[in-house]
């Protein structure tokens, strides 16, 4: 295999929490040397959140949250209260291609690493700030927190059970969405730099990035002046289209019964004929109440009851298998146990990553969602322990001697 696509590209990574680390994870996956600047005086919150191996909290290196999104990166610790730490960061930026942060607007400038400052260190640098609201506009100083960005984006107003209040997406969706868009923007800027020699600054608003995902809702409003109603798991052009209860998991997990569901989407009348046959009720397909999409939409509640009567007596994997054999779109509503142990497909594709980590051992983490045929695509290492690469980076990349590093450490600059 040829070298990874971004081999030789270095990222000076000021990011933390999720949006920024998800951005630099994409770049690490493509082979960039991502060097996370952290501090023990205020560690990334994800280092201090569960899950912990064997449910035993403790330390800064054992969180599954951090260890998932920092795979393949290096970590150095810098205490920015000490001017000597600023000098280390300046030397790192001077030897980097990209500077990334996801602090609130204005913080990186206050730290002395705004775009005007960093371009003096490296004239063709590419810099991106992934802020909640962007660098301009009257709300630019507003603070953004993962869970609140989903409702802010408009997705919550569009998501919910029929006739019920707005709902969440179930995770801080705007964060990884901003991260992955940021990664795309950075590589596009690297391409432009390769062609022209010109670097640039990129202003990202997580809010705006998320609104790109709900064009159908926004266009309904701009074309017709109406707010789309929330329709649960239904689809205006498909029926049945829903999430249906199946048998509970056969075994309790930690003493708790775990319910299971299947997602079914029948796209057209021909697929409905196959569906009706598969569930042993071929007559449904010729019943005037269900024969056409229009009829199925008009009698959707009754149809859903019939579907759920069939699914609820069966295991979700069995329902999905039977329907897929009949070429009907169906899938187990996967939970983390299902993905981890029961999904045969992800395993067969070698999606999961198993890398030795000094404090948690070799645990399963999610990998990259793509495979490249010619260039290397593998996660090169487990997530770093905090400051694991401080000595290595300072001496091998930034020209510090071992004595100088010891002195910096003694004065507290590398906390």
């Amino acid at each position, binding site marked *: 295999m040829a070298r*990874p696509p971004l081999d030789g590209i270095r990222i000076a990574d000021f990011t933390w929490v999720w949006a920024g680390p998800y951005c630099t994870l994409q770049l690490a996956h*493509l082979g960039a040397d991502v060097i996370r600047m952290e501090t023990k005086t205020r560690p990334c919150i994800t280092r201090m959140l*569960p*899950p912990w191996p064997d449910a035993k909290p403790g330390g800064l290196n054992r969180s599954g*949250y951090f260890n998932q999104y920092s795979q393949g990166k290096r970590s150095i610790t810098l205490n920015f209260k000490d001017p000597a730490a600023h000098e280390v960061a300046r030397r790192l930026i001077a030897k980097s291609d990209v500077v990334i942060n996801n602090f609130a607007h204005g913080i990186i400038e206050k730290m002395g690493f705004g775009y005007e400052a960093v371009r003096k260190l490296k004239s063709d640098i590419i810099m991106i700030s992934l802020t909640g609201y962007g660098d301009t506009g009257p709300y*630019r100083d507003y603070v953004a*927190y993962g*869970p609140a*960005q989903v*409702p*802010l984006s*408009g*997705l919550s107003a569009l998501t919910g*059970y029929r006739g019920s*209040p707005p*709902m969440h997406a*179930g995770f801080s*969706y705007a964060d*990884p969405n901003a991260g992955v*868009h940021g990664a*795309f*923007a950075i*590589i*596009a800027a690297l*391409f432009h730099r*390769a*062609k022209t020699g010109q670097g*640039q*600054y990129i202003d990202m608003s997580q*809010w*705006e*990035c998320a609104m*790109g995902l709900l*064009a*159908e809702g*926004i*266009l*309904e*409003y*701009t*074309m*017709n002046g109406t*707010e789309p109603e929330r329709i649960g798991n239904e689809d205006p052009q498909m029926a049945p289209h829903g*999430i249906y*209860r199946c048998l509970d998991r056969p075994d309790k997990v930690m003493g708790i019964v775990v319910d299971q569901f299947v997602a079914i989407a029948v796209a057209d009348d021909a697929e409905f004929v196959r569906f009706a046959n598969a569930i042993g009720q071929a007559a449904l397909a010729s019943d005037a109440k269900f024969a056409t999409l229009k009829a199925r939409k008009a009698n959707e509640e009754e149809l859903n009851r019939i579907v759920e009567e069939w699914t609820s007596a069966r295991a979700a994997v069995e329902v999905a298998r039977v329907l897929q054999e009949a070429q009907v*779109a*169906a899938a187990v509503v*996967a939970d*983390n146990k*299902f993905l981890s142990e029961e999904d*045969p*497909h*992800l395993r067969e594709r070698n*999606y999961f990553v198993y890398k030795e980590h000094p404090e948690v051992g070799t645990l*399963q983490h999610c990998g990259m*969602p793509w*495979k*490249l045929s*010619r*260039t290397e695509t593998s996660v090169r290492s487990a997530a770093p322990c905090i400051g694991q690469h401080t000595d290595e980076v300072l001496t091998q990349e930034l020209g510090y001697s071992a004595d100088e590093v010891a002195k910096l450490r003694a004065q507290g600059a590398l906390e």
Partner: protein
Amino acid sequence: MAGALSSLKIVEIGEMASAPYASKLMADMGAEVIKVERPGVGDHARVRGPFPGGQPHPEKSGLFLYLNTNKLGVTLDIARPEGFEILEKLVAQADVLIHNVPPLEMDRVGLNFERLNKLNPRLVMTSITPYGLTGPWRNLRAEDLTVWSAGGVCVLNGAGPDHPELPPLKTFGSQSGYQGGVHGAVATMGAVMAQLRDGEGQHVDVSCQEAIASQLELTFEYWPYMKMIATRLGKKPIQPLEAMQCKDGGWIYLCCVEEHQWKGFVEVMGNPEWAGEEIFSDRLKRGENWEALVIFLEEYVKEQTVLDLYKKAQAKRVPFAPVSTMGDLLNSEHLKARGFFVEIAQPVAGTHKYPGAPLKYGATPWEIRLPAPTLGQHNGEIFVQRLGLTSARLDELKRTGVI
């Protein structure tokens, strides 16, 4: 100044969101994208809407118009040998082919990297499919709902522990497609950088299921690390993290994760006595005693207006946010000042506002140069002027339904 990707030439064979969104991201930054659609019907997004006045029309679908800005549109039946031959001519001149032709259809028409790579050794070919091109689920039928579910995110969303009878809830729109698309755009750009370096192309296999499984926050690792299952029924350990309704009928999302955020909110509420109770004294206790806390908070919030509470909270750096309606977004003073929404005129659909640039580049523009193409709009320009087909041949291809 030209867009950052103005030297890239892309061919897209895409339907709905995934491949079209990937190539839209590139087209809006200057890349030339030739979009190949099925003769007669075109991209399925053309029937998805929304439509002006609710009247379906293949040139007026909001989803299609949004996802296909800045593209040149041709029609081509690639399942016919004459059609595939023309596709080969297009691909021979391209840097990148992005498609989401389902795997079984790829096999049927012979759309594979080895074949196209022989014609164009530099070609980057990106296949964005629900489950990827290898593995036992390669050929499964899929819709957005089933892929969003198979990726492991749907199980996390729902009514919560008070309503276990309600099923997991899909997020609005074509989210599995968007995530396959943007992750595919990242991988494609990676392959383009390697193309620039080595002068060689490669095949990029992107799985929408994996793109979703890659972003499950901290929930996936609960199984490998702690053997715990994460679902919609989990009680939130930290509160408040909930939407509540205000007196103007709108909703606001209350969000206090850090202690200083809660303190700021208590000040906004005028330091009510109940806030000093021991049972609300830290974030975990507020989670444990949410049933009590929610009564006090609802009492307060229902007397506020969304915008007023939002601004008062933000003034104390408390990260509340409105549950934005579409109208709120279009009327937002902040988004107006940033010029987020863009007006695009398309000859058949008319002029409407659309979501604009996801990011603002300092040196290279994001711009709408062309509205989405009408079906086959650029057949003449591409097939005759670019590929050198004669007008007589074009007519014949049209007559036989190849274009």
